[in-house]
């Protein structure tokens, strides 16, 4: 669907201004909130200039006078960018003042309050401010606005004028100028006295900042340069992470010595050419993929020619021209959440006197091997007469809030349907039959002028765009399906949950679903029901969505597997329905050997709106690349959240599995942050087997040296807060600046009776596992727990019960320790000892706390024990790792390597599409055995050969095969890496 709107408000129908050079900003948290700008004055001639505002996704627009200016005039150059919390930033050339840079901010772009002036700089002059902003998702700076204002600053030394003004905390910027902005010079090379006007930043949420500029060298010869900073431009040096492969200086020259004309008079139709035709866009899924578009004048031509190129290696190397557009200007390029590229430009077509300005957008999903093109406007180029230059604008703008593309351009506003082939809507009074504009009275004819036009191109109609919210805070504040999700913690309040009965339960006061800890056991005892609330971004026609649920161990990095074997559940959304909660849940089973500490995920699909491949099946978010599987795809959601109660004087212990989902040996960096409640100083966190540390408000813990598929345990002890009902801490698995996955743990202050009930349920779960793993004297304890649980649990009944079961712990702890086979890394004995000590004192809080710690230790020990016998969810990771290893130089010449690679990749691919399952894994391994044997022979390693023989021997059991396969690969990796 294409929607083009002339955004001049109806009440301003009498205007004939030249509203050129438009710009656009979209609130990342709510794409319905859009701001736009152009050379538009206050309709009533006041001292402030307006911005265009829309709160309905660009369907309707108003003007709001919030830009400081001078009476009766538009501001000078103006561009806009949204930060977090609705903060809108603007970069303007302030009037009066000539080349006077102002950087502005408002916290509410619909209020009448004039924007705050954060930066006010003139000196030798500053030109063409260009604003981009983003929010930091994780780490100590989480939540801060990063603001980047590209500008050509004549105050820079030695004529190296390309500059980016940077604020690392835009919300905290406080006048007077320069607030907390710093002008970062990004041109390291000699210039022809200066760089050319455009310095265009592009921001990725992983902290990668690109800045493209025209480095003016001599005469009309110019380099197109792309500089990069990998850490928000927050380091000691900025924009120096990308060095040129030729001269070694900062900023890769995409092309050198092109002719970029600077002709500040009518030279292209009635438009000028002032070397401002430059755009850069970064792929939101992968900051390594960056696009640049620019205009130059090749020899023998008179107008500008646009070029589009792409880099897949963070700007180091660039493609040849993927698109070349003659006679065109004002390129704007961006990439949507699916990796599709949009390219907007204005082309001068035809011959005088019948020339036309054609505004066109092209979209491609294959680097312009094929593309679609839409003509948004084709208007006469010889009317109206220019009032000033630029006639249409030195730039246009294109943005992508998720899947869609939104843009803005200026054009002749004759109300003629033929001028707008994809359709058009005017807010101002117009008669399309007579092609006449009218003033606000609807009677007085108004001359044609230049107006700004907003457009929305939906890649997927809103009513077809189904999603599961990653977060909900209230009935009015929730994830509206934006991609990427606008909240950094996307796994603790999502719309996927599980219950132990087949009813979704009521939503809580925050309009969030209430998750229940699942149950494990044979048959009905281990039956759970998964639910999702499915939304869509619009209504219109009915859709049928399919929900598919997956589970993984609680923590981060563990690969997901199907939650159950039952057919997926479909949910019908009526034509007028925007939100549906599954009335009946997806039945899934946790067997008696399974822990009830799980992460739950859902993938919702329709024929029109499938998930973005790959599926979570056999994968963990963030791996094998750092593609953010969940937050970049609104069809996926996950709940990695553990909540437990603790008495006021006690604490809760929780363990989380930290699994290396990568295909390389690595350290796993976990950043934590308290997301609710202040907590207490005796809260602690640590890796089991290592030292613990105080759980401060935020911090980092590094899990060292994990092979692919290897895991460690994180232990967390949380005390309920003094005043807060719940204390929560969120952990994020970091790869560079990106939080690729995470989990959250919360403790809820509760009466001791409630804690006792929780512990009894937990004990039933853990002891069920013990029984399933063949431990003795557990059945009796489970039965006793069930009996106690059937009645109201008092402190006395709980203490009596705990004292009884403690008797059996000595033997259990010994046996479990010997089965796990290593020293008591889980602290079973200590937890048991502490529990007994607490029982002696009859301090209920303390007994409960140590009892809980013991149960967690037993549960984790059992999971580790289970892992030793194989993890079916890791089968695909094994195969992907195998592919990586056999591509290495030491192995890639083996006779059977091609087959091994082919079969391995085929299995992974077919596994995702469910054309093969775990039971087909042995057959796939059978087909690659020759390659494994050849590797063992070639490397002449007895251990590897022994492990190969184990693989061959385990071909009848997928679970044990996964383990022997992993051990083979682990050995192989040490030999070839």
């Amino acid at each position, binding site marked *: 669907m294409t929607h083009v709107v002339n955004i001049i*408000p109806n009440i*301003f129908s009498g*205007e004939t201004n030249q509203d050129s050079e438009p710009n656009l900003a979209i609130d990342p948290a709510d794409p319905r909130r859009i701001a736009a700008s152009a050379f538009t004055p206050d309709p*009533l001639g*006041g001292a402030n200039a307006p911005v265009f505002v829309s709160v309905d996704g660009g369907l309707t627009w108003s003007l709001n006078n919030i830009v400081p200016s001078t009476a009766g005039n538009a501001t000078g150059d103006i561009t806009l960018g949204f930060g977090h919390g609705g903060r809108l930033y603007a970069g303007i050339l302030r*009037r009066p003042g000539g080349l006077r840079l102002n950087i502005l901010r408002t916290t509410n772009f619909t209020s009448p309050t004039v924007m705050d002036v954060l930066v006010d700089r003139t000196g030798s002059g500053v030109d063409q401010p260009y604003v981009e902003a983003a929010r930091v998702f994780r780490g100590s700076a989480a939540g801060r606005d990063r603001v980047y204002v590209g500008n050509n600053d004549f105050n820079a030394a030695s004529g190296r004028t390309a500059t980016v003004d940077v604020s690392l905390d835009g919300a905290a910027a406080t006048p007077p100028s320069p607030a907390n902005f710093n002008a970062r010079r990004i041109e390291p090379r000699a210039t022809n*006295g200066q760089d050319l006007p455009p310095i265009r930043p592009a921001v990725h949420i992983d902290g990668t900042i690109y800045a493209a500029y025209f480095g003016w060298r001599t005469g009309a010869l110019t380099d197109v340069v792309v500089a990069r900073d990998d850490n928000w431009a927050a380091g000691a040096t900025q924009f120096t992470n990308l060095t040129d492969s030729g001269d070694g200086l900062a900023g890769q020259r995409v092309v050198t010595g092109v002719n970029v004309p600077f002709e500040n008079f009518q030279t292209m139709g009635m438009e000028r050419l002032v070397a401002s035709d430059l755009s850069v866009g970064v792929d939101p899924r992968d900051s390594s993929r960056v696009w640049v578009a620019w205009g130059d004048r090749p020899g023998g031509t008179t107008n500008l020619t646009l070029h589009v190129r792409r880099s897949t290696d963070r700007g180091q190397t660039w493609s040849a021209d993927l698109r070349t557009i003659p006679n065109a200007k004002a390129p704007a390029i961006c990439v949507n959440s699916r990796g599709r590229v949009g390219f907007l430009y204005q082309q001068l077509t035809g011959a005088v006197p019948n020339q036309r300005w054609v505004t066109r957008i092209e979209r491609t999903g294959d680097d312009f091997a094929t593309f679609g093109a839409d003509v948004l406007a084709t208007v006469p180029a010889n009317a109206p007469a220019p009032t*000033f230059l*630029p006639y249409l604008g030195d730039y246009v703008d294109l943005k992508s809030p998720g899947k869609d593309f939104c843009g803005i351009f200026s054009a002749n506003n004759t109300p003629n349907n033929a001028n707008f082939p994809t359709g058009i809507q005017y807010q101002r009074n117009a008669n399309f039959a007579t092609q006449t504009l009218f003033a606000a*009275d609807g009677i007085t004819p108004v001359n044609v002028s230049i107006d700004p036009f907003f457009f929305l191109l939906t890649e997927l109609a809103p009513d077809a765009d189904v999603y599961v919210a990653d977060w909900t805070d209230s009935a009015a504040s929730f994830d509206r399906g934006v991609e990427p999700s606008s909240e950094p913690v996307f796994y603790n309040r999502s719309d996927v949950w599980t219950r132990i009965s087949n009813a979704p339960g009521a939503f809580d006061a925050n309009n969030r679903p209430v998750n229940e800890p699942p149950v494990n056991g044979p048959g009905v005892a281990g039956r759970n029901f998964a639910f999702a609330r499915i939304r869509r971004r619009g209504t219109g026609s009915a859709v049928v969505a399919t929900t598919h649920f997956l589970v993984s161990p609680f923590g981060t990095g563990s690969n997901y597997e199907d939650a159950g074997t039952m057919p997926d559940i479909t949910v019908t959304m009526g034509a007028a329905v925007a939100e549906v909660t599954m009335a009946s849940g997806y039945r899934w089973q946790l067997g008696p050997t399974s822990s009830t500490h799980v992460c739950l995920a859902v993938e919702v699909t329709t024929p029109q709106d499938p998930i973005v491949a790959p599926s979570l099946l056999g994968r963990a978010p963030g791996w094998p690349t750092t593609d953010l599987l969940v937050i970049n795809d609104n069809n996926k959601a996950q709940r990695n959240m553990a909540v437990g109660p603790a008495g006021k004087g006690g604490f809760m212990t929780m363990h989380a599995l930290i699994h290396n989902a990568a295909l390389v040996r690595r350290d796993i960096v976990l950043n934590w942050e308290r997301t609710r409640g202040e907590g207490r100083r005796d809260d602690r966190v640590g890796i089991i087997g290592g030292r613990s540390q105080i759980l401060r408000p935020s911090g980092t813990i590094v899990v060292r040296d994990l092979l692919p598929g290897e895991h460690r345990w994180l232990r967390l002890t949380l005390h309920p807060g003094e005043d807060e009902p719940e204390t929560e801490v969120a952990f994020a698995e970091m790869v560079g600046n990106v939080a690729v996955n995470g989990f959250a743990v919360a403790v809820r202050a509760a009466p001791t009776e409630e804690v006792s009930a929780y512990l009894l349920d937990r004990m039933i779960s853990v002891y069920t596992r013990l029984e399933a793993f063949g431990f003795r004297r557990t059945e009796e304890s489970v039965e006793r727990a069930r009996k106690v649980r059937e009645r109201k649990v008092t402190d006395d009944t709980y203490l009596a019960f705990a004292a009884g079961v403690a008797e059996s712990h000595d033997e259990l702890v010994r046996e479990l320790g010997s089965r796990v086979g290593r020293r008591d890394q889980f602290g079973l004995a200590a937890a048991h000892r502490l529990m007994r000590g607490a029982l002696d004192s009859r301090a209920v809080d303390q007994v409960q706390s140590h009892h809980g710690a013991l149960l967690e230790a037993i549960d984790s020990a059992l999971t580790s024990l289970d892992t030793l016998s194989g993890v079916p969810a890791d089968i695909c990771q094994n195969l992907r790792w195998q592919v990586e290893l056999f591509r290495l130089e030491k192995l890639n010449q083996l006779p059977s390597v091609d087959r091994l690679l082919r079969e391995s990749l085929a299995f992974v691919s077919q596994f995702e599409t469910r054309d093969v399952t775990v039971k087909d894994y042995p057959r796939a391994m059978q087909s690659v055995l020759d390659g494994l044997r050849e590797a063992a022979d070639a490397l002449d390693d007895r251990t590897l050969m022994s492990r190969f023989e184990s693989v061959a021997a385990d071909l009848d059991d997928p679970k044990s095969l996964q383990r022997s396969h992993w051990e083979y690969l682990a050995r192989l990796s040490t030999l070839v890496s």
Partner: protein
Amino acid sequence: MPDPSFVFQGTVLALGESTVPIVEADELTARVRVDRVIRAPGAMESVVGREITIQLQAPASVDTRAVFSADGWIYGESMAVVERGARAEVGERPAGVTAEAADTSMDELESPAARDRAAAFRSELGARLAEASRVVVGRVVAVGGLEAGPTTPGRLSEHDPNWTEATVEVEETVKGRAPRTIKVMFAGSQDVMWHDAPKLAVGQKAVMLLHRAPAAAGRRRANAVLHSLDVQPADAKDVVTGLM
């Protein structure tokens, strides 16, 4: 602070209501009908008859008919303005007389509107005149060619004023002292920042309010015309002198 940019006669239709969806109404928010525009740019004079929102400074009652002074705020399907300055009530409507009939009987407001515009012009021109170092009546006899490069070396910008030099034969000095022939700088650029600055052409005779040229113009102590009011038709000399 400049005068309110919108002066109109209107009738309060309702209180606590807004005609602009994103403006939340409170007790000082009024829905009014614009009965007559007294001060507004030309493009907004056609809002007569439209209902708009005004955020009042002080309470009013429904059916109040008054001359409101306001600044613009939000412009959409309707618009919202913020009242500033004194409000002059127009008077009670006689019983049995419709609002429209009452409006047509109030032609006396036409001349205040015209007076308002003229007063604003005189005020602004007077201010420029006071700031001017010289005021001359003269004829442009030559205009220097546009310089090839930026006016300020090392500062190539699309917003360069493109300072241009005109030679003016002075016929009469109205303020200050001036030789028979003077050089006058003006911004030749058609850029958005300068398009409304006065342009001089050979043969043009005008009253010129001369100011000291900015340093960036590159001519020390040069005369310059900078503001749209700095060049007036020659026959406006009496108006200018009348303001001195």
